[in-house]
């Protein structure tokens, strides 16, 4: 602690939207009329809920096919992992790696990081608080890029429509994958990183 008083000690809180310092008992920002909270309301429960929903959606997203390819009459359905394996076996390991990072590594990382953050916050752990805060920022950053897979499928399905020669259609799996991304983003958004530091204050 560097001696700077906490907002709570002065009974004020910060408006999330315009950064105005409001009185702690106020519910609406006097300046921009946005709802104000000392912390994000019900943050841990919401994050858990979205995280669990994301985890549940992640199962069908991986098991169900995401793409249906017809090329010269031979049709095949690919799940995310089978696509990765196929690319890897056909020699383009770079593309395989890209897809693997975007579709498998990143969501898994998000689940792990958010789960860790939630557990540590609930246990009011003081362990590596700075690093955890950094992890949270990292999660928020990569959150936008998790949609890469969905975008690729949408783009390819829209472009490759040559009737008999070859067509690519999206399959239900990609919807679940998109939901996973959305859920993890919601989870990341509803998590309040200031909760990490609340462990320093005894009575909260």
């Amino acid at each position: 602690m560097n001696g700077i008083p906490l907002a709570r000690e002065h009974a004020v809180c910060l408006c999330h939207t315009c950064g105005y310092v409001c009185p702690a008992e106020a519910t609406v920002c006097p300046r921009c009329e946005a709802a104000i909270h000392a912390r994000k309301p019900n943050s841990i429960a919401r994050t858990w809920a979205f995280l669990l929903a994301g985890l549940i959606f992640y199962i069908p997203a991986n098991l169900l096919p995401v793409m249906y390819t017809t090329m010269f009459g031979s049709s095949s359905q690919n799940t995310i992992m089978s696509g990765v394996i196929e690319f890897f076996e056909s020699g383009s390991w770079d593309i395989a790696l890209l897809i693997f990072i975007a579709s498998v590594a990143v969501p898994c990382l998000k689940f792990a990081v958010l789960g860790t953050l939630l557990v540590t916050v609930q246990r009011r752990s003081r362990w590596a608080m700075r690093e955890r805060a950094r992890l949270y920022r990292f999660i928020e950053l990569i959150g936008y890029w998790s949609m890469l897979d969905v975008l690729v499928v949408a783009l390819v399905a829209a472009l490759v429509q040559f009737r008999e020669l070859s067509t690519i259609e999206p399959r239900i799996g990609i919807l679940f994958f998109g939901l996973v991304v959305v859920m993890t983003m919601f989870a990341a958004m509803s998590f309040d990183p200031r909760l990490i530091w609340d462990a320093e204050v005894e009575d909260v």
Partner: protein
Amino acid sequence: MSDKALPPSPSRPLVKRRGARVSLVWLVPIIAGLIGLSMAVHDWMNVGPKITLSFRTAEGLEANKTQVKYKNVVIGTVTAISLSDDRTHVLATVELNNTATPFTRKDSHYWVVRPRIGAHGITGIDTLLSGAFIAADAGSAEETTDHFAGLETPPPVSFGEKGKRFILHTDDLGSLDIGSPIYYRRIQVGQVVSYQLAKEGKGVDVEIFISAPNDQYITTDTRFWNASGVDVSIGAAGLKIDTQSLTSIISGGIAFREPNYSPESKPAEANAEFTVFNDQATAMAPPDGDARYIRMRFEQSLRGLVVGSPVDFLGVNIGKVVSVDLDYDLKTQTFPGLVGAVIYPKRLGAANDKLEKIGGSGDPDEISARILGGFVDHGLRAQIRNGNLLTGQLYIAMDFDPKAPKVAFNPKLRPLEIPTVPGSFDKLQEQLQAFVDKLSKLPIDQVANNLNNNLVELQKTMKQVNGDVLPQMRGTLQQVQKTLATANESLGEDSPQRQQLSQAMDEVQRTARSVRVLTDYLGRHPEALIRGRTGDAAPGSYKATPSSREIDLEPEQ
């Protein structure tokens, strides 16, 4: 009191309240869970039976890619491909949809659809690009199984197709194959479904399928014949080429038809058995009935007589040659030809019926022996005749030859032996031979010698003529030439002889005129012969009527 007065901790109830109130946000994972659960249930409901197919090769099959289709509707997917324990087969594990349970019936068929090129056309061309798939055909049996032996070729007839199956017996398969067409009046009404060797390997059993409603045309009296290839025949009407269709030329086929007169025929039952004849003529001919085996011994070359050559009786084809062998006669040290033949007495038609009455009762062979014995006594003889001078094809003709020498007929001999006479062509050959023999007996050497001597003499004479006679002849000719030249000279225009001759001729002319004047005078004065000439009647005063020549000649005088 003190308990009542004790104010509750400010934060604790707050925390409890917050914890107790269930946030609506938990609906999100619940809904997610429900969706996931419903998907799982749906998938689980959709999982159909799992079956194993064994194929000879996994060519074109791929795990998780190859689909199982029925009428081009996907009913399952190959999930794994492995080798059988004894490594002779490939086992493909197939997960069928739950709607595809009828395809687990025991008599269901599975086969791999690949591009096939055959005489019947090209099939499965779409699989060239899409890769092979497994086609299925549901059976009708009650029992189900999870292991099927995959067919290597597509079944020609799918289940549920209406029609009847029949069994055909044939000596060999010929060019028939599964899928070969069956024709009725040149319309394809069915196809060959399967074939296999008959029991003990004698012949082939061909199973055919005639689709409804054409199966009603198969009657108990229907005749089948092999319609493969082209039937070329040369008859009195000229060259005749008969074929069913272009496909049948290449891939073979079977045609059937009922005889024009078959009063007792009724539609055949399914799986009825029939015989396939070689061609339409034999198929449509009335049944041959039992065959009788006969044997003939010919003392002549049998070149041109082959197995299958016809046996004629008074011009009616009653059988065919079945064997042509050589025998050896110890006595004469010759090789007579032994010809075995079968004859079908029923082909004699009405004659046979009457003959059977004459033959009496007993063993059929005995009856035949009795009848034939009578015929042989009356001069029945077999003879090899030339059926075709161009090809030298021979046939056996049985005719009555009253002049034939008597032969003993042994009715106990089996097979019956028919006495023979030399063939007509044979006779001609003999006469030719005799002629050639006579020719060869001529003393040609002697004649030639004499002729040679004569020629030598002639040569000598000619030499003499050349040496002696010709020079003399030349001298003579020169003399002749000289004589002729002399003659020529004496006859020339200006030669004295010629002038003398012309003077002599003038003299003769004058003399002739004098004589004429005299005769004229005498004609007028015949008395002058006696009295002499009178003065007034002098010849000089006579003026006769002049002729034209005389007018010219007179003035010159």
